[in-house]
């Protein structure tokens, strides 16, 4: 089994961090083979941001994502670049506060940014909300694995809010199932 997940959005939304946390959860706490990559570009300082995670039962040699089956999209620009071509059998999570288009594939609208702001007071939790949603939608890792990885990665003192963020994300998807 091999799953390719693409995260995309704007700089500052925590896109890369989300991908790294997921990768970490799968690699360290789920004994999967994982490669996480991201795109850099001096041409777009503070602009677009994208990252990909490949999670597999077998070793992952070729590290480039060829056809992701899961998309997490947090800006319209990113949607235009990646989401537009998502195949019908893919799964997409998008933040409807930023993305107005809708794909042909199965799609969850996860208003992560606005929920983060309203429920947790800060938009920085949006990416972890997205991870909670992703967990619920895919079950790609266990909850424990993901929580572990989140707690490894976030600043001291924000643990509770991050756990709440995970739950909020899960709930946002669960309600759409």
């Amino acid at each position: 089994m091999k799953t390719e997940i693409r995260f995309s959005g704007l700089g500052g939304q925590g896109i890369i961090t989300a991908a790294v946390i997921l990768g970490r959860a799968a690699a360290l706490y789920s004994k999967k083979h994982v490669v996480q990559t991201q795109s850099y570009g001096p041409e777009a300082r503070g602009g677009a941001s994208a990252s990909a995670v490949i999670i597999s039962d077998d070793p992952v040699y070729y590290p480039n994502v060829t056809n992701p089956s899961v998309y997490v999209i947090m800006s319209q620009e990113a949607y235009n670049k990646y989401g537009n071509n998502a195949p019908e059998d893919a799964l997409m999570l998008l933040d409807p506060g930023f993305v107005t288009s809708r794909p042909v594939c199965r799609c969850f609208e996860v208003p992560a940014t606005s929920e983060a702001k309203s429920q947790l007071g800060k938009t920085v939790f949006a990416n972890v909300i997205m991870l909670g949603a992703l967990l619920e939608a895919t079950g790609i890792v266990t909850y424990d694995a993901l929580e572990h990885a989140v707690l490894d990665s976030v600043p001291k003192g924000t643990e509770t809010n991050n756990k709440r963020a995970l739950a909020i994300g899960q709930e946002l998807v669960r309600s759409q199932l």
Partner: protein
Amino acid sequence: MTEKTDFLNGNVACAEGAIAAGCRFFAGYPITPSTEIAERMAARLPKIGGTFVQMEDELASVAAIIGGSWAGARTMTATSGPGFSLMMENIGYAAMTETPIVIINVQRGGPSTGQPTKAAQGDMLQCRYGSHGDYSIIALSPSSVQEMFDLTVRAFNLADRFRTPVFLMADETIGHMREKVSLHSDVEIIPRRELKEGELPCAPDENGVPGFGTFGNGHNIHITGLTHSENGYPSTDSAEVHEQLIRRQVGKIEDFRNEIADVDIVNPDAEYIFISYGAPTRTVRQLMADVPETYGHLNLRIVWPFPDESLLAFKNAKAFIIPEMNLGQIAKEVRQYTNIPIVIVPKLGGALHTPAELKKAAEVAKTVTKPMTEVRL
């Protein structure tokens, strides 16, 4: 064995490897895509009694780590193409003074500033020939985050064993991607051999390598980049002294090329053999996993000195297929040792070869007869 696993990018793993190998002095100058190495060292070294210094440029960075090495530390710097080009004079100095140092080059698209954030392998020949005059060096090439750690450790051991600059020729792909990595803390350390009382500072032992006269240990030695005799003093007029010195310095590495070798040989009985190092190795492995038992594979973890005898393992070879993220740099070296046709598979611009592209190249290989054939993807 204490072991810690983590999920890190290659650059950070490299810094951790250096620290595990005992590197306690890092001098560097930031450049994409190698900067995370310096940043990690800046965060880690002060906590463990080491020193991080950001120098004014790359020329100074190499100079400082050479100085630091003579002061007794395992020392390292990290850079990418443009910075690497600036290091060339002092790399030659390190070769001539037989100073153990480790230089990481996380390769990006060149020439010039080129593509700062894209992967490439365009500095492989520069690494070997970029400074003036005849000299030899050792260069390693990692193809995974784990190898960024492991080969960095190895680089320090080789540098000390052979008293030479050692290069970790990584690339943006491996430097920036994250994988699981075991951070062994009790890695094997092969320290440099301290100069013995009465031994001349530039006289070879049975391996062609002189003892190292660490500064401050009372050896009272003089080190110079001029041609020097075995007592270390300049001797620039004698053809014999020069020839003997350079032959020894080159020989101490080249004569041991098949001892230094670190390769994976897969399917040695195959007829069509991929030769690769660094990121393209991953694609070759992917292809080998997709269509097992079809092709042979020679993966080079050490590229310089080139392990020529490993070519002999492929007794049935009809062609060597060499995918590189450059215009065929190591292929030229392979050619030195074989009359078997070589298929060059260059790819520029930062994207990896895909498994499909390699398959196509293998098909071309079945038709070639000329010594060198290039596949245009």
